[in-house]
């Protein structure tokens, strides 16, 4: 049996929850402080009004109503109009300035009556109670009474038949579900929001712990808070490895390289160029971009290391005119520092650009720079989500990655992404007879034969030049080239 769900309107949440929140039921949203519980609830109500014309009631036990209004306005939610039109009703149960003492037994019937009245008044289909833990703090000496009374509140909610969210605090990211054990009586549906600090970086995730009688995606999915769309989840666990594989080839922009890879990259494939500093990675990117001329494709370049002025100048030095491509509307260059936002935000940002610009190709220079913006785990997840997204859109990608050693060696970035790339091209320095020579080799190419030679690679003012293979030399990839006497 699968229970019915109410579409929240947050497409990414509806995706991982297989349709939204259990309809007519209460879902506990638990999270440490600063994990965006209030925003999650507020977004649920706001989208209900915006997209489905479903009125909502917001109960606040913690923040003052005016502060919440301000917060809502910052996301361009028109709370003032909604309140005027009676689509959004606040029930103010936030702590007052006055001192409260308790003498004798009490109940929360006043709160229940107020809640019920508000729900009736606007015919609310959505209710948010934020946050249940604060009521324990407000009446800290009476936790037994509060527990007993919260069971009554839960019963009232289920009688009212509104789809509701109750938020609750937790003290640790991995531990008890909530601080006051409210999950003991609000057990059917639990969602956990996390905000984990790891290696000086914050990583937000959402996990649907359970939806009784219904299926949903398992495990943590990263999310971000976007100024336009509030909470946006990157649905890792809900990704499907089911993209079409094209046999169509697209040019790398360098005829000799196309020859090495048997006619070009596959359309919609993910390709990686690995090399040390100055080995010619950006040159390969420039040629990959230049390759769009032939068939009037469109390319998006995300540059995380250089400014656009620098890029244009360098490209001109290799005889490639970015400016002209841009004027024709075929090229879009975005130069940003990776550190300006989280990886999740970069991901969403790229998605937005792809939606409007509709590129056939994407170049990222470099992935290593981008990996600075996140923890290892976050980066791996980003790469998986991002490549799946590109393949889904049938966009051909070229990424670059820096190796720390001048000769030989690999990088951490590569370790993370090489399993999901279709082609890996190595650019390596070869120290021979007191000279730094460059080399190029194709390490792997999925679904195609490729040249196995390590070839000479030179850069001139005409661009890249691929020559003969290093005959009689071994040990290039380990960084210790040796001349082998040929008979």
């Amino acid at each position, binding site marked *: 049996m699968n229970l019915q769900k109410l579409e929240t309107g947050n497409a990414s949440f509806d995706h991982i929850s297989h349709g939204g929140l259990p309809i007519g039921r209460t879902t506990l949203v638990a999270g440490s402080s600063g994990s965006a519980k209030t925003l999650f609830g507020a977004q649920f109500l706001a989208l209900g009004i915006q997209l489905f014309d479903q009125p909502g009631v917001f109960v606040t036990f913690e923040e003052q109503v005016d502060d919440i209004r301000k917060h809502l306005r910052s996301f361009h939610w028109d709370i003032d109009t909604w309140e005027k039109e009676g689509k959004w009703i606040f029930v103010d149960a936030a702590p007052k300035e*006055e001192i*409260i003492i308790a*003498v004798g*037994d009490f*109940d929360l019937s006043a709160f229940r009556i107020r809640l019920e009245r508000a729900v009736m008044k606007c015919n609310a289909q959505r209710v948010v109670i934020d946050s249940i833990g604060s009521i324990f703090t407000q009446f800290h000496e009476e936790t037994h009474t509060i527990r007993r009374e919260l069971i009554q509140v839960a019963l009232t909610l289920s009688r009212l038949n509104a789809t509701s969210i109750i938020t609750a605090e937790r003290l640790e990211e991995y531990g008890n579900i909530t601080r006051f054990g409210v999950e003991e009586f609000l057990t059917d549906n639990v969602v956990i929001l996390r905000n984990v600090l790891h290696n000086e970086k914050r990583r937000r995730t959402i996990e649907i712990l359970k939806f009784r009688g219904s299926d949903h995606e398992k495990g943590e999915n990263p999310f971000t808070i976007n100024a336009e769309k509030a909470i946006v989840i990157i649905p890792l666990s809900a990704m499907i490895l089911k993209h079409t594989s094209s046999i169509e080839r697209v040019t790398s922009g360098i005829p000799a390289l196309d020859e090495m890879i048997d006619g070009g990259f596959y359309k919609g494939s993910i390709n990686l160029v690995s090399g040390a500093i100055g080995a010619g990675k950006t040159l390969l990117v420039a040629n990959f971009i230049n390759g769009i001329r032939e068939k009037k494709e469109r390319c998006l370049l995300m540059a995380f290391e250089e400014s656009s002025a620098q890029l244009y100048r360098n490209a001109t030095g290799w005889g490639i005119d970015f400016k002209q491509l841009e004027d024709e509307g075929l090229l879009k260059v975005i130069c940003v520092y990776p550190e300006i936002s989280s990886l999740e935000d970069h991901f969403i940002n790229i998605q937005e650009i792809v939606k409007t610009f509709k590129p056939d190709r994407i170049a990222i220079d470099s992935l290593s720079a981008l990996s600075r913006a996140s923890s290892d785990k976050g980066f791996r997840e980003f790469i998986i989500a991002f490549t799946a997204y590109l393949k889904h859109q049938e966009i051909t990608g070229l990424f670059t990655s820096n190796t720390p050693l001048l000769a030989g060696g690999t990088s951490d970035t590569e370790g993370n992404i090489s399993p999901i790339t279709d082609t890996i091209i190595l650019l390596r320095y070869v120290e021979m007879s007191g000279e730094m020579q460059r080399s190029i080799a194709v390490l792997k190419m999925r679904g195609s034969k490729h040249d196995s030679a390590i070839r000479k690679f030179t850069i001139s003012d005409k661009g890249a030049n691929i020559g003969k293979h290093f005959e009689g030399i071994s040990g290039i990839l380990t960084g210790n080239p040796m001349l082998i006497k040929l008979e």
Partner: protein
Amino acid sequence: MSMHVFQLFINGHSLNSIEAVDTLLKICRENLNGNYQLEIVDIQKDPDKAEEAGIIAIPTLIRMEPAPVNRIIGALNVRSRVLAGLGISSMHK
């Protein structure tokens, strides 16, 4: 002796409500010498007032005057604590 102004929020004839009303009336009679105003609000009949005052718990007693305003929740069944909470010393007797 200064004027005391109270608002007591109750819920119909619930046990706690009856007890709170009884205790408070007794205190007023015995300790305040007629110097008080007491408004009893039944939230079943007058929910708007409960909304306005942001009442959550029943019973809730609000001492509006003398300042500062304070609130006591519960059945008020420990007389000495209620007196202390309201700032009425037994000297007033």
